[in-house]
Structures are given as C-alpha cells and as structure tokens.
C-alpha cells in the first residue's frame, strides 16, 4: 500500500495536485487578505477617502448608480462597443489568418505589412480616428478593431501554420482534394487555437475600450471614470474598474465554456 503523503509534502512537490478543498481555501484566503488590507487602510484612517474609498463606499456607489439606471446604461454602451468591434475583427481575422498560415503567397503578401502595423501603438491612432470619424461609437469600435485585428491575424496564422503537414498528407492519401484539406483538416485542426486566440484578444479588447472611452466618449465605463475623476468621486472610479474586471471575467468564462462545447476532443 502506498504511504499516505502529508498535505505539506504535496504542497512542496513541484506540479503535484493538492486536494480541491485546499485550493478553494487558499484562493478565498488571498481575496480576504486583499479586502482585509483595503479595509484596514481605509477604516483605520490611514488613507484619505478622496484617494482610496472604503469597501462600503464602493458598494454604496454601486447601489446609487444602479438605482438611477446609469450603471446599466454605461455597461450596455461599453459592451456594445466591445462586442461589435471584436466581432467584426474576429470575422475577418479568422478566415484571413487561416489563409495566411496556409498559403505562402498570402503570407508573403500580408506578413510584412501586418507586422509593421501590429507594433504601432493603437493609442497613437486615437487622435487620427477622432479626426476622421468623430467621437461617436464608430470611433471606439474602430479603436477596438484596430487593436485586436492585426494581433488576431498573426496569432491565427501561427495556429494554422502549426498544423502538422502529416495530417494534410494523410488526408490526401485518403482522397481529400485541396479544398477538402482546407475545410475538413486545416480548419478543424486549428479550432482550439482559434478559440484560445479569441479568448486572449478579448481581454485586450477591454483594455482598448477603456482607452477609447477615456479619450473621447459620452457614455461607457471609461467615460464615467473620467467624469468621476473630475468630480473627485473616487468611489465611482473604483466601481467602474471592478465592473470592467467582472465583465472581463464573464466573457472569459463564456470562452471557456465555448471551448469545452466546441472542441471537447482537445481538452
């Protein structure tokens, strides 16, 4: 019979699994620690509340903005921009990225240009976009698109380039045409990588959203943060940050579930 190993021993062994209960305990503890430090600093009077609001102040701000409907309105405004920008970008980047990773001519044509644009900071284009398309929702969608599209393109091209040539060869010896190979081998083989890419770039899309809303917007979570700064409502800034974090967590969970459903064979 195997000797029962102590929990301490398990904790100190690299890559060893530990009991699930212990994992939950540890993550709860870390949260409690952070909130505890925060409470200590604010309720203890170590930080002025115009710089760091107390937890209750942030919860207060939450109910205030929830009651007057502004929170829902701004969440909706932000979500709309992220989702539309991200969808347009993904719908174009997925097929184009697959082609770029599969056909050397497409790669040769696009790669140098895409790599050039990819390293330009999106933020530096914001003034240009404002000049060209104004400060409406289209401008913010453009920022999201510009921030995610070129990254997605390169990442998805890498995914499809990584598909083993042996898989394609196997399909040819089974009678697949080039079109079959593209549709029935390359695309499904790339699917897990595509979902992962979308999941990662979705996180970046939220970042670009806030940048866009901080600069020029009349609604959205970035916009209320900016407005709150001018009015010294630091509790609202904290609320906006927390809400963005939760929305990010929410979209990330959706992508995790999509991956489980869509590519069960890869998990």
């Amino acid at each position, binding site marked *: 019979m195997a000797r029962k190993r102590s929990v301490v021993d398990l904790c100190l062994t690299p890559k060893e699994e530990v009991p699930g209960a212990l994992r939950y305990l540890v993550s709860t503890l870390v949260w409690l620690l952070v909130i505890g430090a925060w409470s200590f600093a604010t309720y203890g009077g170590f930080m002025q509340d115009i710089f760091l609001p107390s937890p209750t102040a942030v919860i207060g701000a939450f109910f205030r903005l929830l009651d007057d409907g502004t929170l829902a309105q701004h969440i909706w405004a932000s979500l709309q921009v992220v989702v539309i920008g991200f969808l347009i970008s993904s719908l174009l980047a997925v097929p184009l990225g697959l082609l770029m990773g599969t056909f050397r001519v497409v790669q040769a044509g696009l790669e140098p240009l895409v790599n050039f644009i990819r390293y330009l900071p999106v933020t530096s284009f914001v003034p240009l976009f404002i000049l060209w398309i104004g400060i409406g929702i289209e401008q913010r969608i453009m920022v999201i698109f510009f921030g995610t599209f070129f990254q997605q393109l390169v990442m998805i091209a890498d995914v499809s380039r990584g598909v*083993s040539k*042996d*898989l394609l*060869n*196997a*399909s*040819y*010896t*089974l*009678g*697949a*045409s080039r079109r*079959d190979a593209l549709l*029935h*081998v390359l695309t*499904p*083989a790339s*699917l897990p990588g595509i979902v992962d890419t979308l999941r990662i770039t979705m996180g970046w899309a939220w970042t670009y959203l806030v940048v866009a809303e901080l600069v020029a917007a009349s609604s959205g979570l970035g916009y209320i943060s900016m407005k709150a700064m001018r009015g010294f409502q630091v509790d609202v800034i904290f609320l906006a940050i927390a809400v963005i974090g939760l929305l990010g967590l929410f979209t990330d969970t959706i992508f995790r579930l999509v991956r489980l459903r869509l*590519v*069960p*064979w*890869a998990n």
Partner: protein
Amino acid sequence: MSAAEILRAAAPVETSAPVAGETPRLRIQDVRLEYATRGKTVVAIDNISIDVPDNQFAVIVGPSGCGKSSLLYLVAGLAQPTSGEILLGDEEVDGPGPDRGMVFQSYTLFPWLTVRENVEFGLKRRKMPAAEREAIVNRYLNETGLAAFHDAYPKQLSGGMMQRVAIARALANDPKILLMDEPFGALDSQTRNTMQKLLLRVWEENRKTVLFVTHDIDEAILLGDRIYVMTARPGRLKEEIIVPIARPRTMDMVMDPEFIAVKRRILELLKNEIKDDEH
C-alpha cells in the same frame, strides 16, 4: 544446409522478373530523388527499380536515413521523383490519391474525429451514401478489433490502437496498394507482436498489395513475401529476398531454420552497410 543454399533453393528464379500469372502491380523504375537544402543537393534515393507483384506483401528494410520513408512518399505521390517513374498497374503515379492508402510513421489520426469518423473520412470525401458507408466502416472496425471504441477520440487511445485505426482508415478506402511506414516502430515489443498478428490476419482476409517499411528484421520476415534490402544513403537496392515461408504465418515461425537463414542473410547485408556508413 547453409543459409545461402536454403535461399537459393527457395528462390531459384531471377527475383525481380515478374512470375507468370502475377502482374507487377507496382513498378518503381529507375527512381532517383534529390533534396535541395541550402544550395546543396542531397541524394536520398539513387536509381531504385522494384517490381511488386499483385497481392504481395513487400517489405523494405535498410539503415536509418537510407530513404525508406522517401520511397513511400514517392509511391504515395506526396513527393515527385527527380527522375524515373512509378507505375501502379498501367497508370503513372502523379500526385496522391485514394488508390494508395498510407499508414504513417507518426500518428496521423484526425484528433477532432472519433474512431468511427476517422475510418469514415475517405468514404465521406467520395460522397458515399451513409448506409453503405456504415457497413464498410463496421467491417473494418470489427476486423481491427475496434468496435468497442468506435465513439472514442484518438487522444483516449493507446499507441497500438491509434495505429489500428490508421490501418482501418486506409483499408476502408479499398486502395489498390497499402503503404506502411514503420507503423509499429513506436510501440513496445508486446504491443508490436499483437499488431503483427492482427496485420497478418487482416492481410489474409484482404490480400492487398502492401509496401511495408520496417527496421525490425523479425517483423520483415514474419510479414513479408519478399524483402528489399536497401543500402545506406544514398539509398540503392542491395538485394531482393523472397521469403520461403508458407502462409498463414504464426509467431513461432521465428524459430524455423528458413526464418533464421533469411535473418542471417539480412543481418549480413546490413552489417556491411553500417560499416560502410561509419567512415
């Protein structure tokens, strides 16, 4: 009797000439293959000619890197010879096609398809009706002992089972010839023995022309009707040996004097090759 005598007694005819009644199904004629890498050309295969008659199990053995995989890729149409030609029946090989099934050295099952869907892949490309497809797939799943696993995904299978699926997948297409590139090379010896037995049984049932690559000499003799021994790179044909052992073959035949004679001969041929390669 010496090894050479047994062999001579068993194979009195000029070996590469087609025997009456046997049509040479596969003809590899003066095939040469060069790879161009960084300005230098590497000769992988140097003018090989091989005739494999219909319904024969032909095995290629040779030192590592002598061009065995390359030769199969050429027959599969996945690569083009620098010169020479390859004929299957009367048709020249020009590009890959479902008439030449292949089992690869690496695992090449489609991970997003179940065992059943993998076996079905080629039939679907041909747009075969579902009922017909199912009958064929079931037949080969049964023959390869995979019926119980038809709904599993490849990552749930062991290496031996994955190669069984690969064999079933290639056979389901009813190819004229089956190309097998060290299909059991990555398996442990016990699983390999099981797979050899399975392949012998499946082959008895189908009698397809097979071109099989291996570096395992026992495996070559156990499975093959004829064995082509290649030289070290650049790969040339060193000798063609007809295996004088009756079918059906069983595992205990490895102790037969004929078996040992063939083995001794192949070892001798390969020993010289490895020495040649060392300087």
